[in-house]
């Protein structure tokens, strides 16, 4: 009995020692493994076991940034791909930078491979980027807020610096797509001109230039630049059906700007029709005398276009601007 107890004690002691050894070794080993994995791929893919082992289990002196995402095409997560690209840029920038060390690792959990991790962390949205600090549990601020910060690599890097004090200088792989597209366009235009070198009359086609210029004006005046910079939704869905016109004067939807461009265009077309019906700028009196009926009709069409579409424009504007008192034809 006595011996048994002693044996037990010895066994327990050795076991403990062994456990302590594996634990102490575990940290170094883990770091080594993580460094190896990072060397292979700058974002470490994690499944449930790996996640538990590297991210959750205690002997850690490193921070872990984990992105939870759903990349499978069946999940239809359009933004996931964008976030993944940006996240990849951050991870690569860190991986190949001077500041690379064993204090920070980047990982990724895909929903289809680790849905139990999602359950464990009670996540029901993707993508999420979370920071698991070296000590303690993640705080609410340890998951990144895309809505406020945006999804740019710079924003992610700034957030990481905020959380871990590791400064990452973003090095974007130079984006050749723009340059390539530009070069292709240039080559196409040049090639086209070269092929048609004997027949360059079309360049003197004023109609074409005028149409291009007028369309550019429509695009700008209807706020396409605002759409480009602010990225509003196409239109807004509510319980009472879709809303196409933003209620405030400081915002707009993409569809709304198209509507406005069309209204503007209709007014311009109407006015040009009227001018052409009345004889055009060059003022050809001989032609002006002829075909009175057709021209009268054209003129009336132009007038109706101008009045109706301008009134529509005015009422849309009135709906957006509070307290605007004037309208024309329609309320």
């Amino acid at each position, binding site marked *: 009995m006595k011996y048994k107890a002693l044996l037990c004690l010895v066994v327990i002691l050795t076991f403990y020692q062994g456990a302590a050894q594996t634990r102490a070794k575990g940290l170094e080993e883990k770091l080594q493994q993580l460094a190896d994995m990072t060397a292979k791929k700058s974002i470490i893919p994690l499944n449930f076991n790996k996640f538990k082992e590297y991210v959750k289990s205690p002997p850690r002196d490193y921070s872990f940034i984990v992105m939870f995402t759903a990349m499978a095409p069946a999940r239809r997560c359009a933004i996931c791909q964008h976030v993944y690209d940006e996240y990849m840029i951050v991870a690569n920038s860190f991986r190949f930078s001077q500041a690379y060390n064993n204090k920070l690792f980047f990982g990724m959990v895909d929903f289809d491979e680790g849905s139990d991790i999602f359950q464990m962390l009670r996540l029901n949205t993707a993508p999420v980027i979370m920071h698991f600090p070296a000590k303690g549990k993640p705080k609410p601020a340890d998951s990144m807020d895309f809505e406020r910060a945006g999804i740019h690599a710079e924003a992610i890097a700034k957030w990481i610096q905020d959380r871990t004090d590791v400064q990452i200088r973003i090095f974007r792989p130079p984006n050749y797509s723009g340059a390539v597209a530009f070069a292709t366009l240039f080559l196409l235009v040049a090639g086209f001109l070269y092929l048609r070198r004997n027949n360059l009359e079309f360049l003197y086609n004023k*109609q074409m230039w005028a149409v291009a210029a007028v369309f550019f004006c429509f695009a700008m005046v*209807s706020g396409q630049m605002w759409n480009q910079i602010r990225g509003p939704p196409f239109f807004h869905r509510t319980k009472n059906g879709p809303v196409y016109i933003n209620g405030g004067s400081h915002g707009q939807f993409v569809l709304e700007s198209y509507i406005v461009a069309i209204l503007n265009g209709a007014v*311009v077309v109407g*006015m040009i029709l009227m001018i052409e019906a009345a004889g055009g700028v060059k003022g050809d009196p001989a032609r002006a*005398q002829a075909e*009175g009926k057709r021209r009268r009709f054209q003129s009336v069409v132009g007038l109706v276009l101008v009045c109706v579409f301008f009134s529509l424009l005015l009422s849309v504007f009135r709906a957006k*601007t509070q307290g605007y008192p004037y309208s024309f034809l329609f309320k």
Partner: protein
Amino acid sequence: MPATAVAKPENGRNKGIFHNTAGFSTLITVTVLSLAWLAGFASRLFAVIRFESIIHEFDPWFNYRSTAYMVQHGFYNFLNWFDERAWYPLGRIVGGTVYPGLMITSGTIHWILHALNIPIHIRDICVFLAPVFSGLTAIATYLLTSEIWSRGAGLFAACFIAIVPGYSSRSVAGSYDNEGIAIFALQFTYYLWLKSVKSGSIFWSICTALSYFYMVSAWGGYVFIINLIPLHVFVLLVMGRFSQRLFVSYTVFYIIGLLLSMQIPFVGFQPIRTSEHMAASGVFALLMAVGALKYLHSLNPKGQWKQLLIVGGFLAAVAVFLVVVLLTYMGVIAPWSGRFYSLWDTAYAKIHIPIIASVSEHQPTTWSSFFFDLHVLVCTFPVGLWYCIKNINDERVFVALYALSAVYFAGVMVRLMLTLTPVVCVLAGIAFSILLDLVLREDEMCPPPVESEESKSLYDKAGKLKKRPHETPNGASEAGLGMNVRSGTLIAFMILLMLFSVHCTWATSNAYSSPSIVLASYGNDGSRRILDDFREAYGWLSQNTAEDARIMSWWDYGYQIAGMGNRTTLVDNNTWNNSHIALVGKAMASNESAAYSIMTALDVDYVLVIFGGAIGYSGDDINKFIWMVRIAEGEHPKDIHEADYFTERGEYRVDSEASKTMLNCLMYKLSYYRYDSGGSPPGYDRTRGALPGNRGFKLTYLEEAYTTEHWLVRIYRVKKPDEFNRPRLPVAKRTISTTNSVSKKLAIGPGTTTSKRRKGLLKNKPTVVKGKKVARLE
């Protein structure tokens, strides 16, 4: 306004009727232009009538202050003026960092009037300068449009620009700013440029250069001219429209304009050292090369010269471009500055320059602001553009380029709507003029019956007398457009123009005529209450603080404090030093003790914050606060984190759910200290619609100095180091007993060591009780 609305329809017709009576058409022109001037002037007076003759907003206060300085001390002293009242402790060299055109203009007017013994105060000149110049702008626009199309179109354009909100937004009475005179200079320079391209005379080119000089002295937007004119020349070269006239006018303009523009101290050597100006020099070199090739071509007009010309021109263009790029890389030429660069790369400012992105004028433009500022013109100016391109010539190339570039810039930045407005007026004037000219031209066959209702001027009757004999009752209407269509068109367009002028008046009156220094609020019964808190506060500063007191506030109010309070400020609206602004932002965003160390480092005596919670004023400092945090974070990323000021769900709140950092930062405390107004429950913030989360706290390092009637402006005095944390002793107890009672009071003081230190006692004199900074005392 009715003056313009009535005046417009006639001029379209006067060409047809009075083309042989030059005197009459001149009379009409002069009448219409002076009516446009009058209408434009009158429509800009809303603020003066509603409030008083007062300088508006922020920047105008600086302009006014420097104008007053110049009038008092003379021009040369103004150029050498070092303003130690701004940007404490750095100061600002005013003479070298302003565009002096505005000050010189009003100073000259002041000098002339005083020479004529008309004793007018400089403030009144400053207030009314912009409305007066709007008339000159109308005339310049008339001249420009007449060069491009016809005099009738010119009159339309002049009437449009006189009242259009896109321009009157920057030129109401009291808005004493560079743009007020710069738009005139812009239009006039363009007019003279077209004149010189048309005539090819050195005289007009030199006039262009002089007008350009005035523009350079008036506004930083001169860069638009010095890029648009070279662009015009370049496009003309590409189109094969090179001519001796073009050569003469551009070379003369470029050389003289360059030399003149370098005379402005603020501009200095920029025209040869920065990328913004390189287009002009590049086109100059290219024009020289093309001129030389043309000359060679003229020596031997036969053979393969034409191809040589094209290839040579192309090579010259590439060479010039490469040289500019190379020089930029070598650092001889400064690259594009952030403000201009953000026009091309629209995401640039948002990421890199929060101080540019924070200004509401630098946001992109929605369609409704286009419509608000231009109304019917926005959907008619493409018609003018269409016909200008269809009937192209040298000067119409210019107006097309002007329109396309300006419409792009206006799309990127709300502020540049100002440069778009003139060209929109020109093109819409052309469109209206073409249409009404055609509709009214066949008058001789069938006069529209609407005339008698529509037009009341006197020559109208003369016109009828002339026409009646020619009238053929029925025959002509079969062939032409017919009377009904014609009159319908006329009526419809009269209504459109009337809507336009009504809209302009409404927009100018409601949106652009607020001085923003005096606020008005309307009660339920329509009664008006004037809130004059700003001037109250600045008046208090000027009367009750030391002459050299330093006031810390957010930069928006710097110019006003200097202009009205006449006190030293740390930062102001001339945002040239980002790190200094960030320091102020950091002080506002830190907690009290951290802010105190910054404030003592900056020698701050008073802190001024704007708080709109009591009256529901939305432009106050708490609403701007997030930008202070962002700008501070840009310079001090270690100490300030934007996320700390939001709730966990990322909301920006001030009530009890707000984050702890937010509730304890200096700006929050200064805004809500002792605040108990704002309706029920007391202390309710009407701007944010919330009850502040941190109330009833005490301030340790500052004390309230003054709060205006409606709580709008709150001024705090920064305590000296010996003033805070002192235990309050009743007078009776201020004698020192021999026991150790003093050190007992110092429980929060220097600690245990005090009891060991023996103090020497003076009779009837309280000891100096040294305090220690306590991290937080609530």
